[in-house]
């Protein structure tokens, strides 16, 4: 009797587990494509704001390589998207991670033109203090636009810092750590692109970015 009731309970529980998993699996199957498409579109919108669309005729999201440069880009591996016109390289877009934000890592998107100038910098995700450190978001303040057109020679390397450290870039009232670490990360990304040079454009493209899980 006792065995029977235990078995029955187990069976009912099992039935619920199977039903639940089936429902989730079916829904996942149904909306999977749509979710991937959302992620792709969201990424594309971000790229479009920092790349000169009229000078590009490829889809940088489909033309990416994975690189491993922890010292410069902050993460074990990061994606590099290449923008081209025909065969000519136009720009690369990097995804550096700022390891030393005030409240955890900050993910950036940095586009570097072929001539070494910055096309644009955007913050993808961060945990900085609302109202202070979050002025790095383009929707909250124009600070991040300061980087447009800068390069390793403009300002010179030793001026790549916030004003408090004798550099060229503004800090925020009440928040120096966030801008300081971002300026540093952008500088490192520039150094990395400078070192790699043409090699970044020659590497064979990886699988299309669409298929990859983005978190």
């Amino acid at each position, binding site marked *: 009797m006792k065995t029977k009731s235990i078995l029955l309970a187990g069976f009912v529980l099992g039935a619920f587990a199977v039903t*639940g998993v089936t429902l989730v699996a079916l*829904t996942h199957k149904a909306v999977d494509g749509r*979710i991937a498409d959302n992620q792709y579109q969201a990424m594309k919108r971000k790229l479009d704001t920092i790349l000169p669309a009229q000078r590009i005729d490829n889809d940088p999201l489909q033309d990416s390589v994975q690189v491993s440069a922890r010292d410069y880009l902050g993460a074990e591996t990061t994606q590099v998207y290449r923008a081209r016109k025909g065969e000519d390289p136009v720009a690369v877009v990097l995804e550096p991670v700022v390891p030393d934000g005030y409240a955890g890592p900050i993910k950036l998107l940095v586009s570097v033109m072929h001539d070494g100038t910055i096309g644009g910098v955007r913050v993808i995700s961060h945990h900085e*203090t609302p*109202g202070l450190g979050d002025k790095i978001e383009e929707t909250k303040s124009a600070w991040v636009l300061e980087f447009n057109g800068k390069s390793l020679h403009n300002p010179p390397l030793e001026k790549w810092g916030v004003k408090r450290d004798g550099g060229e870039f503004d800090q925020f009232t009440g928040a120096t750590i966030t801008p300081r670490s971002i300026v540093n990360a952008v500088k490192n990304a520039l150094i990395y692109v400078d070192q790699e040079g043409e090699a970044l454009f020659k590497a064979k493209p990886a699988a299309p970015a669409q298929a990859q899980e983005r978190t």
Partner: protein
Amino acid sequence: MSAPPSYRSIVGEGIWSNNQMLVALLGLCPLLATTTSATNGLGMGLATTAVIACSNGTVSLVRNLVRPEIRIPVFVLVIASFVTLVELIMQAYFYEMYLVLGLFISLIVVNCMIIGRAEAFASKNRVDRALVDGLAVGLGATLVLTTLGALREFVAQGTIFYQADLLLGEAAKGLTISLGEDYQGALIAILPPGAFIGLGLMIALKNSIDKLVKGLKAAPKPAPAAPAPSVETAAT
């Protein structure tokens, strides 16, 4: 078995007199974490409502099938499945909103408000009442989340329903109320302490309204018979 509660009392309890967030203080995690703006609060409230209505309905449907000793694991399974569904659907249709609320959507699983209603109400009542209870409790939670979100957003940024279009589409742009660009704002409202202070103020307000109402109809008639003693599970 005592007489089943009327719809009226279910709705009244869910939204006001036994509001799970203001009275039972269940579900504080999403309450405190996601109410940085009215839009976020509303999104979180709607997601919670969807989950709680579905889970209440299901739990009520299977209440005679499920043996008492396995009811808690079954509730958890049901709730977890629905939360995952809501999360997937949100990713597919409200992607921008998902980016903001994503982490907290999965946390609905551990919102003790939902398992509390499954255990205290849905597992003992007919499916129609369980659904009404789920919707009422969800609506009560949505109201609290949205109000607290609006309060914090307003004090901190001087806006209400900023970026409501992320959730409700282009038409909702008109919902946004703003004090203008030069409002300096009180940062604390949007930081975690602001959530506690705001919640405290809301509870105090609710209690004083209750007291006032009670005082108004003190003498004429005795307080309505106490509703069926609801077994509020202890917050986990």
